[in-house]
């Protein structure tokens, strides 16, 4: 209802209050999100070091950034990490959801067990897995004391494999959550369709492959969006699990940005890397949000 010129006081008041109520949030969002984004993007074109300065340097920071082997490592790691993390979480989540959907006795007990890691801080997860995977006191040691002396599992200390331990811990933390999303999707499927398919003689395998999984499209999409943005944001887990090491073997863009900005005093380059992270997420999120909000109208 827009107020017309001849509206009475109450109508006009009732037209303004909603906008007034929304405005603090709106103002905060415009300043703290979009204003800050513009500021950071601007900084990425300046010669900022310890503190923001405003000497314009054009694309220099981006130039430098792309020539840093450090950045390249973090991008390669990101590719490995995000790819495996998304695929494995989706597979485990879907698998567990399908299995749990078979009228499992004790579902009420299993579900919270699968889900609880989601309630933990990545710092806690990192701490736990760090010691669990430590060859000195963790799994390897346990296997040795149990008599399997040739067992070797030192990935967390190994430059080539350390990134996979990050994947492992991240999967541990979020796959239960993905399971819950798929389970909700499965429970939402009309049973009559399944009965009809069974009447048509579809085997369980075909039932899932041809009828059920295609209907989970929205759950797949949501899982992908949530997992990919979590992957790009992954920061605390690496800090707690490997500290970015050994060496720089598990550096990700998020940790790269942090160390360049706050410990190496290369704010311009840090801002440039943050801008690239934002663009990547935007490329995934904007089409998704657009589609979601479109169909609601």
């Amino acid at each position: 209802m827009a107020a017309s010129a001849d509206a009475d006081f109450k109508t006009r008041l009732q037209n303004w209050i909603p906008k007034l109520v929304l405005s603090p949030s709106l103002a905060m969002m415009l300043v703290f999100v979009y204003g800050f984004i513009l500021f950071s993007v601007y900084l990425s074109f300046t010669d900022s070091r310890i503190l923001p300065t405003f000497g314009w340097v054009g694309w220099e920071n981006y130039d430098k950034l792309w020539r840093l082997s450090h950045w390249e490592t973090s991008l390669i790691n990101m590719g490995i990490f995000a790819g495996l993390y998304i695929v494995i979480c989706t597979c485990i989540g879907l698998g567990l959801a399908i299995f749990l959907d078979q009228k499992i006795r004790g579902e009420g007990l299993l579900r919270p067990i699968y889900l609880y890691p989601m309630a933990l801080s990545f710092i806690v997860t990192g701490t736990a897995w760090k010691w669990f995977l430590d060859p000195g006191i963790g799994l390897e040691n346990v296997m040795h004391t149990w008599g399997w002396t040739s067992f070797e599992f030192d990935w967390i200390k190994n430059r080539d494999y350390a990134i996979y331990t990050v994947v492992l811990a991240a999967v541990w933390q979020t796959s239960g959550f993905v399971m819950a999303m798929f389970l909700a999707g499965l429970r939402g499927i009309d049973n009559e369709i399944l009965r009809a398919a069974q009447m048509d003689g579809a085997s369980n395998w075909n039932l899932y492959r041809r009828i059920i999984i295609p209907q989970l499209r929205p759950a797949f999409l949501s899982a992908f969006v949530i997992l990919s943005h979590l992957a790009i944001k992954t920061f605390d887990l690496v800090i707690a699990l490997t500290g970015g090491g050994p060496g720089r073997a598990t550096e990700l863009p998020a940790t790269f940005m942090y160390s360049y900005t706050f410990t190496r005093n290369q704010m311009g380059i840090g801002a440039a890397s943050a801008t690239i992270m934002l663009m990547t997420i935007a490329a995934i999120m904007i089409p998704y949000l657009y589609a979601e909000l479109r169909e609601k109208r």
Partner: protein
Amino acid sequence: MGFLDIDNATKSYGSVEVLHKVDISVQEGEFLVLVGPSGCGKSTLLNMIAGLEEITSGEIRIKDQVMNGVHPSNRNIAMVFQSYALYPNMTVGQNITFGLEMHGVPKPEREKAMAEVAKLLQIEQLLDRKPGQLSGGQRQRVAMGRALVREPDVFLFDEPLSNLDAKLRVDMRTEIKKLHQNLGTTIVYVTHDQIEAMTLSSRIAVMNGGYVQQLGTPQEIYDTPANIFVATFMGSPAMNVLPAKVVMLNGRPHAEVALFDGSMAQLPFSQDNLSHWDGRDILLGIRPETITDMDGADRKSSNIATMTNRIVVTEPAGSDTFVSMQLGGRDVIARMRSDAEVAPGQDFTFAVNMEKAVAFDPETENRIQG
């Protein structure tokens, strides 16, 4: 000037006009029903009267006060919603008195008003319950109680019976009619159900595509529909509309229609002015109940025509038997007494009450005025 005036009311969303220059004047104590298929604009019009939707142009007046831009709560109206819209967290009593509370009526008066309304609607024993614990019919009563307690100038009903099962709907219909008769309130009532419209209203506005197709008493609407839309929308089963040709026989206009075998039957019109249409094609409108057997024909009618046609299907429905046949190349339904002796495949002599027949211009689909 009426009690509630809708004057050239138009509603647009952006560039799309959904309601076109509606003009209705409602008298005090009148029961106006807005009826039409979904999307015809009837609910939009009701919401505009309530002040829930803004009026794009034109005016709405209640008791000569212009209501444009007046807040819904300041219009002295009350509304009964399709979903009843009872506040789920409040008891029935609180639901009924919420409006009074918002208008600053002191508690003792609210209690008194609530007691009166509860007694009137026989819901006294429900006052402490929550809406979730009530049956559909009880919720309906509470929703009406909430409207009544305000003693508004105009009651607005938005499809209030459509969520009830068939039997309850008939009971509540009677109840609403009784209430209107006893209280003499002014009511604007929206429904898509033409039977509700016929039974409840003192006047009906039939709407379609954002236009008021016809405004009149139930009898006018039924007997002299303004156009084919009104003719077929009101009445069940719908009025038969079939191609016919006007021919002059013995100085009188007749409708010439094709029977099942292609031979022609001539049915005399009661309206003489149709002689202007001599030789031209029209669409003939005949209500099913005006096609009967000879014994069932209306004895008061001065114009009963007969024709012999083949019966295709018979559908006994208890009180009546519906008979279908081919007439003018269309499927035509006749409504006969249940004891009429009819069988599929039989050639039967029908009596057609031509006094009630109407003719439409096939181009404009409007009724040819008598």
